[in-house]
């Protein structure tokens, strides 16, 4: 199976080492704790293990079995077959961090390209090699801003329109930092960027907004950016990469940091992970950036090559003064995003974004016409929009489920003031027919 040793080989190796048995190699382990009996099920053969896994998997219903109108930070997009065909290459997935550049040029160039793609997509200058997910990317933006002002500005203003879980993670990450304080959490759920401005002051290191926000709303961030910069603070924008196939970039608004969840870029839903946190910023912050960074160089023959750069920021060298503890990140998913963006290209990405945009608006308009349902939120929005339901969201969602539809996110669970509202997501996977069917079932549900 996976341990190749034959009896003879083991015996020969023990002879070379000079111990009689393998057990003798463990004498440093306190005898009383040595060789505990593990109460685990007996081993399965590969075919049994696969059968078992299939049994678990088939106990799920998934977006392959249901029409999915659920988003809220994870989106059901089509993944072109070419993406997984590349991810399945052992050369990529069984390598590790490219510590030895000469035999890691594949990984290094792929990351370099990923960085370029993300910088271009977000309208920024540089990008790192990835974060764990969209949430920790926001958190690391908080940490970076904190360090940027050497801890002298403790406040981080966060819009309630930032994904609720991202805000939680930001809080967890920052709570060990002296003086750090997250503001804006008690603003009304549907606050707009301008509602944040009064909270920004000389103690503010960072302002964080989501664009489009958690409710799918698209706001002009110019005014906010000006206000942030007027106070000498930084602006971080957590964004949706597919929306940027269509929308003005955070960079154009003047964002200092752009983060986001890269899952929509060719990464399967996979019950929430592994996903991809992306993080881009301006050149001036290169030394403050967490994580890995790949740069271009030349070898002695003038041949172009790629290397991990600015590693002095990393914990291997800086230890307790490192800008972050991140080590293993989401390399393979960054590769997925690169292949996805390359495969779709300019036209494809734009087309997907348009399909999402127009279909979501079509759905909103149509749902708004159903008796009892109302879409109170004005256009424009992307991927998602909020609907007021005539009955508890859970009930309606139960009804949808019975009709093979995975309903929207129950906003009341994250924003008590929005109880009775659902957040419905529409992507290129939801055809007009799917949307029409959803409307039918919704109508029925309300009866």
């Amino acid at each position: 199976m996976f341990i190749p040793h034959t009896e003879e080989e083991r015996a020969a190796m023990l002879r070379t080492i000079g111990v009689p048995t393998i057990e003798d190699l463990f004498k440093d382990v306190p005898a009383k704790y040595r060789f505990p009996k593990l109460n685990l099920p007996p081993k399965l053969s590969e075919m049994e293990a696969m059968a078992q896994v299939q049994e678990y998997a088939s106990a799920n219903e998934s977006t392959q079995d249901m029409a999915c109108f659920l988003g809220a930070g994870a989106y059901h997009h089509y993944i072109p077959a070419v993406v997984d065909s590349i991810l399945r290459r052992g050369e990529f997935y069984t390598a590790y961090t490219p510590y030895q550049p000469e035999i890691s040029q594949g990984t290094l160039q792929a990351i370099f390209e990923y960085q370029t793609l993300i910088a271009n997509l977000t309208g920024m200058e540089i990008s790192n090699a990835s974060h764990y997910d969209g949430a920790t990317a926001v958190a690391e933006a908080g940490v970076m801003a904190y360090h940027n002002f050497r801890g002298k500005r403790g406040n981080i203003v966060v819009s309630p329109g930032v994904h609720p879980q991202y805000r939680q993670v930001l809080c967890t990450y920052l709570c060990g930092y002296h003086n750090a304080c997250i503001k804006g959490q008690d603003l009304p759920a549907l606050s707009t960027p301008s509602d944040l401005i009064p909270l920004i002051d000389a103690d503010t290191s960072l302002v964080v907004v989501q664009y489009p926000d958690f409710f799918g709303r698209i706001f002009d961030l110019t005014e906010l950016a000006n206000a942030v910069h007027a106070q000498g603070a930084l602006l971080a924008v957590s964004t949706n990469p597919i929306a940027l196939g269509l929308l003005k970039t955070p960079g154009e608004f003047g964002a200092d940091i752009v983060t986001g969840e890269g899952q929509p870029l060719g990464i399967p839903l996979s019950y929430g992970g592994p996903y991809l946190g992306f993080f881009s910023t301006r050149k001036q912050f290169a030394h403050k950036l967490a994580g890995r960074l790949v740069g271009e160089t030349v070898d002695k023959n003038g041949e172009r090559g790629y290397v991990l750069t600015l590693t002095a920021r990393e914990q291997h060298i800086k230890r307790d003064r490192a800008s972050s503890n991140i080590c293993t990140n989401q390399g393979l998913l960054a590769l997925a995003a690169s292949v996805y963006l390359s495969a779709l290209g300019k036209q494809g990405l734009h087309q997907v974004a348009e399909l999402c945009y127009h279909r979501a608006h079509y759905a909103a308009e149509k749902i708004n016409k159903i008796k009892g349902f109302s879409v109170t939120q004005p256009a424009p929005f992307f991927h998602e929009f909020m609907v007021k339901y005539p009955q508890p969201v859970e009930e309606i969602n139960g009804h949808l489920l019975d009709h093979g539809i995975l309903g929207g996110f129950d906003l009341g669970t994250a924003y008590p003031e929005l109880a009775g509202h659902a957040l419905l997501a529409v992507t290129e996977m939801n055809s007009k027919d799917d949307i029409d069917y959803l409307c039918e079932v919704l109508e029925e549900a309300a009866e």
Partner: protein
Amino acid sequence: MNEPTIYELSSPGRSGVHYPDLDVPKTALPVGLTRNILPMPELSEVDVTRHFIHLSQKNYSIDKGFYPLGSCTMKYNPKVNEEAARQPGFLHAHPYQPVETIQGSLALMYQLQEWLKEISGFVGITLQPSAGAQGEFVGVMVIRAYHQSRGDTNRTKIIIPDSAHGTNPASSAMSGYEVIPVPTDALGNVDLEALQTVCDSTVAGLMLTNPNTLGLFDQNVVKVIEIVHKAGGLVYGDGANLNALLGICRPADLGIDVMHFNLHKTFSTPHGGGGPGSGPVGVAKHLVEFLPEPVITIVEEGTDEIPPLYGFHKPAQSIGRVKAFNGQFGIMVRAFTYISMHGPDGLRSVSEYAVLNANYLMTLLKKTYKLPYDRICMHEFVLEGHWSDAPGVIALDIAKRLMDYDFHPPTNYFPLIVPEALMIEPTETESKQTLDHFAEVMLKIAEEAHSSPALLKEAPHNTPVTRLD
């Protein structure tokens, strides 16, 4: 051969993946909020395929050969894991699906929690951390929350041995702690006296890697833990080296309070060229209520006929969330599959053979390479890559020269306490033949270092690029 970047390969107007035509009326785009240029490459599918295939061919990988990168447990990644994680029911499940529709995933996570408990001896597990370093962060935050919950707010320091991985001090600092190093003694253990000296009431805890990064099991581990506990501190275990301990010793039994696992090391989930990993954290009883949310739990007990209903639980004094959604689920499936296929005896064999391989290779090499701590090692060992009679040759040169022989080099320059460190972790999946061949090459390189050092200094010779800095 230089491979152009995807932008260099781009041709204006070329189209890649096509999508359906719009089947609904258009809605006006938000004025002033659309982008004018979308600087994405323009390629056909064949361009994309060839480009990434070319790139892949420039990589070394476990699938290609021996990858004895110390501290990283580059064991073979069974192919069945990849199929398991790609089961449609798993792959297409949305993280916010109602729990009733996702019992398969939840049951798997629950089971994995239980198995990790059994393997480690801990009482509580969170599967949420994304990798080892995030597990460390969680662990240290849990320690912090524990002290705070007891009103014990004077503890501002974390003790970390000088052999520790850089993530340990970084994680402690992120959690707001001052880092106090302790030295390693001549036998490669934590220096007990030094530890005694720094252990006072300001100490929140110790981050201990055991076996440590020298590949040595701390011979005083119980004592070390006792000292810290006596001072009121807790002990964090860096579980990166758990591949030495499966069925050999349960960290919790030794008295460790909290520890992370690296599913991508010990449990064979692939390293992906730098992730994704997964870093579950196990805790002893007194720390269970501080775990991050969510923990997977049984919300309704089952019967003989009806399976239990699985759901989420938020521990009462949780440190909060460290990640959106439910952790690196796809990695959990792989680890689950791996554990299923090993069972208790198989897991013990994993560690036994990992340790056998390391000791065998160490024996073959230690006459030629200086072994600074010469005793039986666990799953890895650290050599010094330099000789006084071969001036100018450093560990890096040996690393690069190994590439000429189609090997991935060991970890270089870590741990910091060994000069010119070559940290070698063969793992249990490598055969005696491979180890013999590697040893042969290492001995040959040692000879070359003396007879023709230029061969080393100019290495590698056959890689897509020559030595890069």
